Each structure stands twice: as structure tokens, then as C-alpha cells.
């Protein structure tokens, strides 16, 4: 089973590399951000598979942290992209009908 899990993790890493091509190419900032989000979810899956492959289940804690903070970059992104740098897209929609 360990070999199966590690092989899956390798394939998943290669898939992530595909997502990173979209981060590189863009073109919109939103594209880059969403591709990074996919890389984040994939990274969580890689960690889960590593935990299963090594039977070191304490690694789940790291996956937990990454899942908890998965949306942080996106929140930072929409803040930076909003008009005043500290708003959110919805507040902007209200302010500029």
C-alpha cells in the first residue's frame, strides 16, 4: 500500500506542476490566484497521501493547518485588488453601482 500511496503522490505532484503553468501564464491575476488555490488543495492531498504511505498520521496536522489557511491568500488577494486596498469586491459593488 505504501508504494501505491507514494506513487499517487508523485502523480499528484506532476499534476500540480500543470496547475503551476497556469500561474505562470495567467493572464488575469484571478487565473493565477485560482491556479495557486488548486495547487494548495493538491498539496493537502499530497500530504495526506504521505501520511498514509509512512503511517505517520501526525502529518495530518500539517494538512489541517494548510486547509485552515487555504483561503487566506485569496482573501489577501481580493483585499489588494479592491479599490482602496482594504475593502472587498462586494463592498466595492455597493459603493459603485
Amino acid at each position: 500500500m505504501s508504494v501505491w500511496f507514494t506513487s499517487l503522490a508523485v502523480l499528484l505532484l506532476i499534476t500540480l506542476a500543470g496547475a503551476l503553468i497556469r500561474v505562470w501564464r495567467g493572464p488575469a491575476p484571478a487565473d493565477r490566484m485560482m491556479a495557486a488555490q488548486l495547487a494548495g488543495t493538491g498539496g493537502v492531498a499530497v500530504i495526506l497521501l504521505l501520511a498514509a504511505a509512512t503511517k505517520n498520521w501526525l502529518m495530518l496536522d500539517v494538512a489541517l493547518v494548510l486547509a485552515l489557511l487555504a483561503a487566506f491568500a485569496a482573501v489577501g488577494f481580493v483585499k489588494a485588488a479592491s479599490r482602496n486596498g482594504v475593502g472587498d469586491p462586494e463592498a466595492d459593488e455597493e459603493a459603485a453601482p
Partner: protein
Amino acid sequence: MIDSLFDLVLCALIIFVAFAAVSGRDLFTAIVFFIVYGLMVAIAWLRLEAIDVALAEAAIGAGLTGVLLLGAYGRFKNIDAARMGSWVPLPVLIVIALAATGLSAAVGVVLIALDPNGLGLIPAVNANIAQSGVFNPVTAVLLNFRAYDTLLESIVLVVALVGVWTLADNSAWGQRVGKTQSVRANGVLQSFGRTLPPIGLMIGIYFVWAGSSQPGGAFQGGTILAAVGLLSAMAGLFPPPRVNDARLRLSVIAGPILFLAVAIAGTAWGGMFVLPADLAYGLILAIEIVLALSIAITLMLLVLGPPEMTETPQ
């Protein structure tokens, strides 16, 4: 075999992502790659069986540093393109590339020359772990064997915060830290900011508590608590504190002060930081809890930046 393949693919990815982060076409792309980079490095730490480090890297690399850099990016929006900087001239670039390659090669040669069976300080830690009061060797090193480092680090955090605050404009002094966040009431962001903190709080406290026997501790837990506080602030759920709030300042220095007090009390047993084995567990736990709180608040304030409120939040 398959393990080596995994290591090679992961390392190739790390190097590619790092390359993209330092030489990406524009600043935003570079920042996004840097966030992905933190994730990849966290996986590398797991492969080196350093779960404690992976936790810290995941919380800081994927959480706080990304928000910090994206926040700075947002403030650069009004700068015209001509003043956003560029590459240095090509001849200089070539010299730098050669120097950097040489440095990498030198470090690589040193690594290869290293005794492949070197044990480092593993025997020393194992021999003394029973006296440390905790079962997680990393926590034992952080809060007992090398407590000096940790104490100084907690002071570095306070000094960095003082540094950030001194950059405030005179007119903003006494105001709330950071900028006024404008968020639509009960919108997506605010709902998310309400849902996540209870879970994050639970996870952060779990890490602080678990740190004595398994990966976790004041830094890992404190960083997660900082991230949770930061999210609540960015979601406009509570107004950021004022810089001259006495309780805020007290909570920033409480951790270092308790730590220092315990260190000095150690002189009664024979020297700075000498923790008697039977009291060590209780002392370490007390330091961990207070320190985690101070670290959480300090890191949150560091990311929010100096006070620059222009209006009072409603």
C-alpha cells in the same frame, strides 16, 4: 525507489517555483509563486520528518507571509509603472548569476563532504530528554535546552513591532493599527470570517496543548491564532486595537516577561534557565501558553502594519 522519485520530483518543483518567484514576469506573479513555494517547502519538511518545522512553515508561508506580501502589493497600485523598478543592467546580472552559482556550488560541496553518518546532536538530546519535562524533543530544545534562543526570539518579535509602529505617521499615532477595513456587512467575506475563527481557535489551542508530547507548541499554535485574528480583522468583525491601548501592550510583552522571570528564577537552582526536572513540565506549559498568546497578538499586529486609520470604523 519510488521514494527517491518523489524526492526528486518535489525538489525539481521547489526549484522551479523558487525560480518563478524570483524571476517571474511581474510582481503579482512572483508573490503567488512565493505562496505556492511555502506549501512545497512544507512538504519537503515532512519528507525530512520535521513535522514541527512543517507546521510552522505551513502556517507562516501559506498564511501570514502571503497576506503580508499581497497587502503590500495592494499599496503599490498607485505607483506608476516607470517607478516600479526593473532588472539591473545585463553585465551586472551576469556577474550576479556567476556569484550566485558559485555560492550554491560551494554550499553543495560542503554538504557532499559532510560525514553521511553524522549524528549531530541527536544523542545529546536523547540523553537529556528525560530531564526536560516534555516528550517532544523539539519543544525540549526550544523551551529548555536552548531556551536562550527562544527568549531572545520572543524579544525580537517585540522589537520588530516597535520598529513597525515607529513608521506610523504622527497624525495616525494613537489610532487603530492598519487601515480601516471596508467590508460588506454579512457578505461572503464577513460570513467566512465568522465561520472560520471558532475552528481555527480550536486548532490553535490544540497545537499549543499538544506541543509537549507531539509536534506543535507555542510558535505553531501562536501563528495559527495570529492568522485567525488577522482574518477576523480583515473581515471587519472587530476593529483593530489602538496602538496606545495598555492591555494590548501588556499582552505583547507578557510572554517574554514570564519567560525572563522563569529564567531568572532558575538562578535559585544553579543558573539562568536551569529548570528543575520535577517542575519543568509545569513551567514549560505556563510559558508556552502565555508565549503563544503574545506571539499570536504580536504577529497579527506585525502583519496589520503601523496605524494609518483615516476614519473611525463604524
